[in-house]
């Protein structure tokens, strides 16, 4: 994101904040009772900015977007040289009503807050979330027709407490710049390895937490899924590599810097789930109901395991060497059963 885009995004956020304050303020003052200069003074913004905000408010309203759905603002009265510079807002009465959530909406918010609470590291966050939860649960209970308390309990296992503790341990190691000895399960080799890493941060991608670190065994940056870390021991040894920000995973797990190969697979309908489970670069539907998919592959052994798992509903299109490896693995497996490939 460029500096201009960041500034624009920040400006938009601030404007939304102002608009959310503006409408209740105007309601409290009463229709046709607020002059532009008075409102600008009360709200602490320049008059020009307030007019800009009101022009945006003019485009806001209820779903539908027809003129009757939108908030009406008399802009002429504010910008016309002959205007009386009094703010008149109409068709916004619904904004004065307290927020009402449907049971489904309330449940969604409560579940989200409980998940947030489980993963919260600081006591302060927990307190804030607890207060919001108490209010919501009370309101939901009062609103329930049967009088049943609308408590939502996602269960103790919603967030694994051991994982939460591990996350805290690793984040402390990052903050103290200490090395960590990891015992880590490597799925592509189905074996546990031990390695020393310089932790850089804990990051999340698609609901999974990763420790981003410099791995001294691989002599390269690596990401370790927290749920595959069997043990993490924070050492007294300071990290040996220069400080670096953890990887930004918002654009996906793979980056241009990785040694990543894009491999094209042809998948039968039975294997289409791959397109949703992983993050393909491209998906092209085929006439037979299957798809051709371009997948980023960082570990060749992972791809062969995936192909075996999908057998016989997938094959490699783009790289003949994978077909050879795949065929060899199938032949070895068949040999176990006394069969020739």
């Amino acid at each position, binding site marked *: 994101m460029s500096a201009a885009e960041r500034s624009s995004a920040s400006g938009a956020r601030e404007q939304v904040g102002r608009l959310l304050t503006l409408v209740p303020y105007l309601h409290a003052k009463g229709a046709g009772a607020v002059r532009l200069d008075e409102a600008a003074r009360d709200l602490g913004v320049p008059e020009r900015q307030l007019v800009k905000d009101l022009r945006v408010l003019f485009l806001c309203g209820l779903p539908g977007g027809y003129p009757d759905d939108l908030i009406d603002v008399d802009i002429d009265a504010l910008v016309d040289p002959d205007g009386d510079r009094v703010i008149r807002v109409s068709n916004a009465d619904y904004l004065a009503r307290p927020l009402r959530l449907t049971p489904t909406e309330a449940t969604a918010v409560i579940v989200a807050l409980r998940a947030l609470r489980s993963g919260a590291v600081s006591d302060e966050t927990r307190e804030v979330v607890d207060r919001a939860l108490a209010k919501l649960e009370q309101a939901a209970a009062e609103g329930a027709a049967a009088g049943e308390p609308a408590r939502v309990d996602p269960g103790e296992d919603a967030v694994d407490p051991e994982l939460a503790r591990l996350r805290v341990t690793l984040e402390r190691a990052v903050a103290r710049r200490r090395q960590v000895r990891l015992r880590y399960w490597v799925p592509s080799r189905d074996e546990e390895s031990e390695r020393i890493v310089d932790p850089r941060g804990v990051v999340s991608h698609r609901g999974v937490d990763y420790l981003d670190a410099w791995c001294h065994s691989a002599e390269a940056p690596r990401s370790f899924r927290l749920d595959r870390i069997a043990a993490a021991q924070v050492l007294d040894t300071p990290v040996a590599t220069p400080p670096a920000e953890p990887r930004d995973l918002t654009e996906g797990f793979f980056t241009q810097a990785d040694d990543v190969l894009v491999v094209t697979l042809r998948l039968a309908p039975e294997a289409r789930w791959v397109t949703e489970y992983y993050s393909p670069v491209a998906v092209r539907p085929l006439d037979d109901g299957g798809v051709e998919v371009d997948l980023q592959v960082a570990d060749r052994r992972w791809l062969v*395991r*995936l192909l075996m798992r999908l*057998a016989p509903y997938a094959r490699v299109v783009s790289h003949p060497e994978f*077909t050879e490896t795949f*065929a060899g*693995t199938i*032949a070895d*497996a*068949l040999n176990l059963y006394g*069969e020739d490939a």
Partner: protein
Amino acid sequence: LAHGPDVYVEEPADLRAQVVARLRAAADLVRSAG
């Protein structure tokens, strides 16, 4: 299947037959495509 030749299914027999059938089908698919 993902474990390839590292895992051998002894019992139950119907599961073993399924594994062999899928491996055989995969071998045929690779051969026909290649």
